[in-house]
């Protein structure tokens, strides 16, 4: 049976988060070709004598040919990746337009899918949710049962206050000791220079960083018409009156500049950057992530 991916809104109605994540991941995996990179680091460390229960595919047949004895290969990093998922739960992430998912829900689903996928691959995964500060921190663990803890935490998220990315990242950097992969999910509606600077620091600390910017299509295309009063979901100002038709072109130009600033900045810093909109199916989103990263 061929797998058909669901749009994010339809998926969000499927059931609990565990089920949804499993659904997505299995669908994703079934659609993928045999990957040579399956959850193990490829770096060979040593041989050890075969004991019943070891996988036959790890038997080094060359050694058997020489010694008539069965030995299995042992690899350098048997315990794989240590990933930390940081999810922005500030007010701006609650924005939605039309019939799409709001950014926070999309981010939650994305975090759940990534978490499940990584755990499924026997990588360790941790979770931190933040707005102006870290609201919840779950250390990374590698067993599949850890997903329930992560899923619970994701399901219980309540949108927070305003965004303050830079201080949050600084605080987070003090919590993790070992090198790992940092998956940062946010709309990045903050000062770009500060965000870039703080994320670069993770690179200096030899962490791998992946930034996933989640925005609504409306935030990019500005499909509004006529005179409107825009009420911000974050910030102190009361709002702004505007003739949408008059400013549309200029807004789009500014939005592209904003996105490009991050794109260029992250590329320069060696940080993987992905832009996803809330109407992109999760499978396609993950595919785009995997197509550029070999170690997930």
């Amino acid at each position: 049976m061929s797998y058909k991916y669901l749009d994010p809104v339809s998926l969000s109605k499927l059931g609990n988060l565990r089920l949804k994540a499993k659904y997505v991941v299995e669908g994703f995996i079934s659609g993928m070709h045999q990957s040579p990179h399956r959850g193990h680091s490829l770096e060979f460390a040593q041989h050890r004598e075969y004991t019943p229960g070891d996988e036959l595919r790890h038997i080094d047949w060359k050694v058997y040919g020489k010694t008539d004895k069965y030995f299995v290969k042992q690899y350098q990093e048997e315990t794989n990746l240590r990933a930390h998922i940081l999810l922005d739960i500030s007010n701006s992430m609650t924005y939605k337009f039309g019939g799409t998912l709001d950014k926070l829900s999309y981010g939650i689903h994305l975090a759940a899918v990534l978490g499940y996928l990584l755990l499924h691959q026997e990588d360790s995964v941790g979770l931190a949710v933040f707005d102006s500060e870290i609201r919840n921190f779950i250390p990374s663990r590698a067993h599949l049962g850890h997903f329930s803890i992560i899923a619970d935490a994701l399901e219980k998220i309540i949108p927070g206050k305003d965004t303050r990315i830079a201080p949050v990242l600084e605080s987070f950097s003090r919590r993790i000791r070992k090198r790992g992969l940092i998956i940062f999910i946010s709309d990045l509606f903050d000062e770009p220079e500060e965000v870039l600077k703080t994320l670069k620091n993770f690179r200096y600390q030899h962490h791998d960083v992946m930034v996933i910017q989640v925005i609504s299509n409306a935030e990019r295309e500005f499909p509004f018409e006529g005179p409107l009063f825009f009420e911000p979901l974050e910030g102190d100002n009361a709002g702004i009156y505007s003739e949408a038709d008059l400013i549309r072109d200029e807004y789009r130009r500014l939005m592209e500049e904003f996105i490009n600033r991050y794109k260029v900045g992250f590329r320069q810093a060696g940080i993987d950057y992905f832009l996803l909109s809330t109407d992109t199916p999760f499978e396609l989103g993950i595919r785009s992530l995997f197509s550029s990263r070999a170690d997930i």
Partner: protein
Amino acid sequence: MISFLNPSLLWLLPLSLFPVILHLFFRKKPRRVPFSDTRLIQLAMKRVLPRTKLHQWLLLVLRCLALLSLLLIAAKPVGYSGFANGNSRTQQVILLADTSYSMGYTESGITRLNKSKQFEKDLIGDLLSEEGEKAAAGFKQLNIVEFSDYIGRALPEFSIDAGYLRKFVTETALSCRTTNLPAGLSFCYKSFAKMPPGNRAIIIVTDLARHLFPGEAAQFNIKEALPEYDPSVRLMFVSVNNGENDNTCIENVGVMDNPLRFVPEIRNFGARRGRCPVSIDINGRTVANDLLDIPGDAAMTHEFRYGADIRDFASGTAFIQEDNLGADDRYYFAQGPRVSRSVLIVDGDPKYGNTLDSESYYVNTALLEEKLEPGSNRFDTRVVTAEEFARTGLQKYDLVILCNVEKLPQEKLSELSGIPLIVTLGDRVVPDNYPAFLSESIGETEKGEFKIGELDRSGNFVKNPEEFELGNIIFNRRAKLLGGNPLAGFNDGEPLLIEKENSGNKVLIFGSSIDRDWTNFPSKPFYPSFIRSIVRYAVERQRAETEANYLTVGEQIKYVFEKGDKNMSARLILPGGAEENLKAVFTGSYSQAVYEGTDVPGMYRLETGGKTVYFAVNLDMKKSESNLARFDAPGLKKYFPGAPVWIMRADETTPKNISLLLEGKDLTRFFLILVLVLLAAETALSNIKK
């Protein structure tokens, strides 16, 4: 400098601020929408706003200006640059005053002519100040011309004397003529052509009725009707017509004999049905009256039978109750002069002892049927034989009829000069014994059974032939008639009666016998009428045109004196009682007296040598002057391509407006173009992408 012909509308100018009021107080409340982060929106607004504000203010200004221009157009702006046309200072104005009889229509107690005169005086006062300052500077010059279907009075030259001009207007009187505007305009253009260059205008004060121009604008060729047409001359039509159109008139009165009847034709031009009393006066005495019910916009006739003989009737008047236009409520009619004609009948086969069979018996009897009293005959006849004919002098005869005469001697032919001749045939006639112009037309005789076909080709001498049993008239013999002008024919197409000319004299040739030798015609009821008709045709047609006694106003009265009349003068009594003495003038063939002054309708009575002749002069009802339907104003402009034309109603403000127009330039078109430009700019600006 700008002035306005409708300054009261300037009070509406604040309405041009309506777009600003809408913009400030009636803006649509914006809808509130949540947005994640408004910083980019703020930044976009900051960059776009200055341009946007300018754009919006420009739109507002354009809309206000467009509204303002529309309001100014409604107020009818007139601009002054000092002089309206070119560099000339002189204003040359002709007042063309309509004096046709439709201007006699009374509305609200005043005739249109009097209203027109009052307006003209007011206009003179406005155009020429009493002090004469501007006039003294030669700035304005006026002339006044009265017109109907001809040019009435006109000042000999342009004047600047307001008092003199007003006096001229006061003396303007109504004519009884119809309207011919092109004739009036032609006179004006010719007058201008004699003047030095200047700003010119013709102000036509008229009732602006539909009869102003015959036909439609599409058929009117300005170059043919007005060769002097100058489109630079401004034309201002001032209407004194309030729109009332109720008018009833008598268009015609028919007079019929046997029995004597009078049939007036009455037309109601109004929209409403009306009851109309009609009366007939005969010889100055009312003899009949009735009350007619005439539908709106319709005509009807009514027959009044008069018991007396036609010879008792000389003149009469039909009249209806006088309405708002009294001039067309009377119609005059008269009987033509009764004169005797001397007719010589030459009997070529007298049949002594049996006059009934003589050639001349029936024709003589037919002519004498009108003889009832001595001295009042229509025809005085004398019958002679062919031998006696040779010895008879012909000078005193009006007509000679040859009935089956063997020959016409050459010497008698010269005596016939000036006398019409009728030749009838029979078995005595020898064509070769007739002069060539007659013999060439008389062909072979033939036997058969021939009937009358086309009876009256000329249409001049047989009335109501369908009343007679023409089918019972049989010709057993006839002669073929050749050449000439056929006046009647047989049913096989051969001519029965032809007309020829001999040295200016009329000659009729009848293609059969005039007695019962070749035909049963003399025994039929039609015979006497036919004979009298062709005799009258031969004798009186030459005189008919000179003795018409039904005339329209302006036509000449002509009276032709009889041969042998000793008294070659006449006394003409005009409708008002005044008298004119008329002297005879010899035309070469007859003597006549002419009178040119039929300016008013009525009965004109001419007396000469004991005879009285009546001439009925009426208004020209064929020109539809009595139809007072108003001209379609936009349609009027189409008659004058290229010329500035204004159409106004005569009221208190019109003289002032005319003054303004004469001195200034109508700016309506300029503001109209401005509105279009502003609207185009507003549309373009609205669609520009910021």
